[in-house]
């Protein structure tokens, strides 16, 4: 059968369809969310329990506000949006494997209809800065960037954190064998002011700070947190005297170690995580 350009287009348009959430979708939705944002940090990893409470039971959300785009033939969920009656899109996700433009257009159309129906005066949502395709489509629809809240952290347990970071970088630490003593100023809290970390064969374990150490690092809680969470380069912290390293011959190796340990993945949070 020969199809005209128009019918071909129509046939393609109908690849996906939208519907509202129905019971039993949770696991597919959660898999889609965790898979789509797998390269990101900064959000609560979705579990069934969390998603049901955070999206389904949210007072601002009713079932008609959860719009799902699925593949017509396979029934696979390719995208979804959790829209509140206030106009906030609490969670928004378009899978990476699907034809994103089509899935986006379908969800956006339904979302606009729903928002007009509930009478909200605005639509707001969060998207990752790296997702240029979605950002371009939003801008095409007339959306503009608006000020957003930033994530801030306060580290409660540096030893565990450094241990986890060391595990994360694995081989890169293998050639290093150091016992580092961190001495930090923190005026108000009980955050341990001194702690030791032994880096050996790719692992970082807490060590007693009375043990002999090969490096001592004097800094503040905020500086060390900024370095480990990727907000401050170790070399910059050193140049600006926020990081004092002894002995001098260990400056390079300490900066290298901190640089290996620091987190680099982009941070993204959907509106659902803070609202």
């Amino acid at each position: 059968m020969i199809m005209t350009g128009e019918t071909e287009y129509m046939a393609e348009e109908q690849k996906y369809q939208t519907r509202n959430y129905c019971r039993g979708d949770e696991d597919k939705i959660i898999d889609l969310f965790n898979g789509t944002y797998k390269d990101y940090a900064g959000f609560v990893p979705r579990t069934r329990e969390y998603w049901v409470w955070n999206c389904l039971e949210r007072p601002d959300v009713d079932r008609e506000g959860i719009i799902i785009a699925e593949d017509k033939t396979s029934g696979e969920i390719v995208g979804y949006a959790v829209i509140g009656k206030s106009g906030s899109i609490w969670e928004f996700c378009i899978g990476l494997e699907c034809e994103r433009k089509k899935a986006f257009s379908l969800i956006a159309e339904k979302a606009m209809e729903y928002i007009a129906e509930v009478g909200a005066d605005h639509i707001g949502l969060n998207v990752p800065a790296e997702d240029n395709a979605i950002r371009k489509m939003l801008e095409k629809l007339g959306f503009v960037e608006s000020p957003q809240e930033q994530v801030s952290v306060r580290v409660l347990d540096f030893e565990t954190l450094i241990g986890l970071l060391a595990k994360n970088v694995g081989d890169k630490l293998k050639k290093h064998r150091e016992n580092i003593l961190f001495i930090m100023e923190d005026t108000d809290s009980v955050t341990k002011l001194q702690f030791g970390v032994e880096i050996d064969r790719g692992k970082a374990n807490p060590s007693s700070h009375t043990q002999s150490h090969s490096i001592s690092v004097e800094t503040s809680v905020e500086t060390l947190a900024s370095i480990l969470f990727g907000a401050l380069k170790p070399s910059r912290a050193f140049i600006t005297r926020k990081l004092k390293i002894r002995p001098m011959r260990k400056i390079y190796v300490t900066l290298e170690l901190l640089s290996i340990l620091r987190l680099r993945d982009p941070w993204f949070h959907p509106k659902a995580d803070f609202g």
Partner: protein
Amino acid sequence: MPESEYIHRTSCSADFEALERLVRKYLPGFVHDGYCRWKYLLNPYFDQSFVVLTEKNGEIIGCIHWIPGRLKIASNIEVNANLMTDGVTIPEYRKLGIIKSMMVFMENKGILASKGATVNYAYIINERLARRIQYTPLKSSTRSYLLLLSWKKTIKRINEANKNLRSSVEAQRMFAHLNLVLLFRLKGAPPLTINIRKEEISVSETESEHASVIVEGNLGTFNALMTGKRMRWKLLKAFATRELRVRGSLLDLFKLWRSFGTVLKILRPTS
């Protein structure tokens, strides 16, 4: 802060209603009917002992909530973490360090680390505030997008201002010399015309052909201007960087600049 006057303690279930009243009253933009019940009582991760409050003479004057849970700190690292949220003090007790002292109280008691949390985290729009309470602001890859479909909240606010205008001679005097038609043409929002006269301010979501001052730009920039402090300075900066453009006769622009505070009161959201 004289410690003896203020008592910090963790909350119990009997405190829920008082805390809800406090949060609803002082964070009105975030809190709606059923919000606290859902956010805390229905939350499977919520723990009452992770809420700290401060009392003075038996009255609750401030509180902070933490919600224990999980957080991804890297693509392949998840940690136990406490989300700090709904921290508030009654206005007359602000700038006394009460929030910070509640945080220290919780850390010293070891409550926040009791479920193995590695970090506390919070969503804070003001970087300086985050640093003041010893939270480290991180670089974020999150972008917020907004599309305003209707100015109905602004229109409602202006209609309320109108009632005051009709009954207040002083307000009428303030507006008497203005006699301006302001047109806002912002990307991401429908057009808005505000007609300021001595007796009345009228407003419509249309483009007036007789606008004396036209403000053009982006809704995001405009929203950023409308929140926070140092508005005149931010406005000047937005004009200098051409993020906002304003057109009109010099006289009208001067009139607008002089009455900036009054016009702002009308436009600025209360929540």
